[in-house]
């Protein structure tokens, strides 16, 4: 009986092995080797210098985690209230709101990001608008400066904006799901015991939506920390992040897959540690998202 039921897990195990375990093993092998020049050509040799030499990139690590953290916090601050207000509306409103939130996700990711470039550029839509309605003139008058546009693109803010825009739905959805499943009688029970709306929120709604927050934070933080297109397009090369660094090692000019693999390994370990800490606060439901 047991072995029979175990058979159903076989496809999953094969899948995991093929697409998770084997790639990680390959990465590990890559990261622990370097190419050595010999008389006959290049050879692979075991080495930890990929890791020891990584201190060069501390700045990129720092920026990646910092920008991802900021983007995640902003997503949480926007996403929670949106999810909360949505969950309290009627089913009709909920359906429309959900469609509006999902709508941008039907467009290609790169297309969306290019659009933001067009909006944020120095002579982009936003700056043109500011010029037209006199915001820039006003700014110049107030500060005594003389700018023709606001520098928005190629700033950390633009990268964070791009990440928030792209990943916000991943914050809203899990929180919204948890909130709609929340038993309304628990709220009434809290009111019955003397809790006003703010106490109900603090003592009942918030603690019971922690699992949604953990999922949302995970689903925003992980892609944010490893993003490369957003930082390249909106950061314009000034905001290099880990994703760009790794990409550069595999496909770019700095071609060195061994170093790329090592950076990816370190990033993965840090992310996993972050998630384990997060899950400690949730009640374990977030773990499913992590895998």
């Amino acid at each position, binding site marked *: 009986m047991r072995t029979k039921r175990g058979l159903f897990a076989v496809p999953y195990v094969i899948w995991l092995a093929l697409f998770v375990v084997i790639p990680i093993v390959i990465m590990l092998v890559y990261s622990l080797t370097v190419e050595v020049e010999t008389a006959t050509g290049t050879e692979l040799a075991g080495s930890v210098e990929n890791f020891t030499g990584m201190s060069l990139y501390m700045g990129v690590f720092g920026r990646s985690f910092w920008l991802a953290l900021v983007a995640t916090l902003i997503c949480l601050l926007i996403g929670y209230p949106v999810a909360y207000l949505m969950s309290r509306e009627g089913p009709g409103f909920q359906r429309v709101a959900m469609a509006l939130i999902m709508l941008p996700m039907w467009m290609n990711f790169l297309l969306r990001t290019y659009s933001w470039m067009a909006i944020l550029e120095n002579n982009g839509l936003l700056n043109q608008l500011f010029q037209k309605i006199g915001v820039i003139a006003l700014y110049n008058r107030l500060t005594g400066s003389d700018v023709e546009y606001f520098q928005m693109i190629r700033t950390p803010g633009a990268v964070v904006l791009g990440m928030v825009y792209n990943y916000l739905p991943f914050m809203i959805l899990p929180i919204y799901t948890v909130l709609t499943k929340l*038993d309304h*009688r*628990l709220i*009434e*029970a*809290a*009111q*019955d*015991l*003397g*809790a*006003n709306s703010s*106490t109900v929120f603090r*003592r*009942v709604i918030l*603690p*019971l939506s922690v699992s949604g927050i953990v999922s949302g934070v995970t689903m925003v933080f992980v892609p944010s920390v490893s993003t490369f297109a957003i930082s390249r397009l909106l950061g314009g090369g000034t905001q290099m992040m880990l994703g760009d660094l790794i990409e550069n090692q595999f496909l770019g000019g700095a071609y060195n897959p061994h170093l790329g693999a090592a950076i990816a390994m370190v990033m993965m370990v840090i992310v996993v540690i972050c998630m384990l800490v997060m899950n400690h606060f949730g*009640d374990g439901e977030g773990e499913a998202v992590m895998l």
Partner: protein
Amino acid sequence: MSKELIRLKDVTQVFDGETVLKNVNIYFNDKEFLTLLGPSGCGKTTMLRIIGGFQTPTSGDVYFNGERINDLPPYKRQVNTVFQKYALFPHLNVYDNVAFGLRIPKDAGDGSKEKIKLSKEEIDQRVREMLEVVSLKGFEHRSIASLSGGQQQRVAIARALVNRPKVLLLDEPLGALDMRLRKDMQQELKRIQQQMGITFINVTHDQEEALAMSDTVVVMNEGVIQQIGTPEDLYNEPKNAFVADFIGESNIVDGIMREDKVVEIFNRRFACLDSGFEKDEPVDVVIRPEDVDIVSEAEGQLRGVVTSVTFKGVHYDTIVDFYGFKWLIQTTDYCPVDSHIGIKIDPDGFHVMKKSKYSGMFGDYSSYSEEYDEINDPTIIDEEEAEGAEDED
């Protein structure tokens, strides 16, 4: 003698064009155990929610201690609720569930802005005290999910009572428990109510439970209060066919009040104790199954044929066909199926009621025998026999 605490005045509740409570007028006394009894969907929960403040009535007023509280939010009312299915907080353990209300600073109640905050020690003492009252000592750190239904229910009671409310509302508190536990908890609830000395407003659709626990029972149907009274009143003096049928078992037949203390059924006159009806007023007559004595056919005031017998332990449920109308008789004498019997009813065995919209809807046991796969044969009694009965009078 006892003080009025809550009053609903002309309360009507409409949901989506459907009237769920119709013009309800009722008051609740201090220290009373009162039960709202009625079939599912009759508006019991709605009434409780109006008292708790979770529902604002479409029209009408709610008074607490003589003060109109229609617009007072639930968290400001001196009322606590044991919710249907308990609604315990799953993220808190037993102790924290019970302490929930105590940890919230409360208005001093004297109109000042000041809030009363209990000290940690006082909270601890009250929580432990209350856990003892509901026999859950030692369960402080258990998670809610690890408790049985009966234990969860005790936590819900403790969580509500620890706030020392003036009134405890209980919405079908025993509904989710199995039979045995339910019987125990009936006693337990009654004990807790007496120990705390506060008003309990209980909701149930189980008439046995209502009769066993309550000082006062309110029978409801279709959003209308049918009758309010002590369990004895309701059983002995039901106001209409609905109440008579809902409370206990009843045979209900059409009758005519010929004069004070004389009622006619099946064209025969019987002595009874009821008076105050018009002469020749059509009435509903209730005869409880245990008030009928089975005698020999010759001695009987009415004669009939036994169509089914079911052994019930203390007595037999005997279905007897009288002139095409089936009665339930509870008797310790065994009468085999198809035997011809006579019955006698003492004057205090009749209870006469005014005709109501429920007349003719209840109190016939024709379908009863079908439950026992008995063949229902209406042709046994012929015209002659019915006329003969009339002549005898």
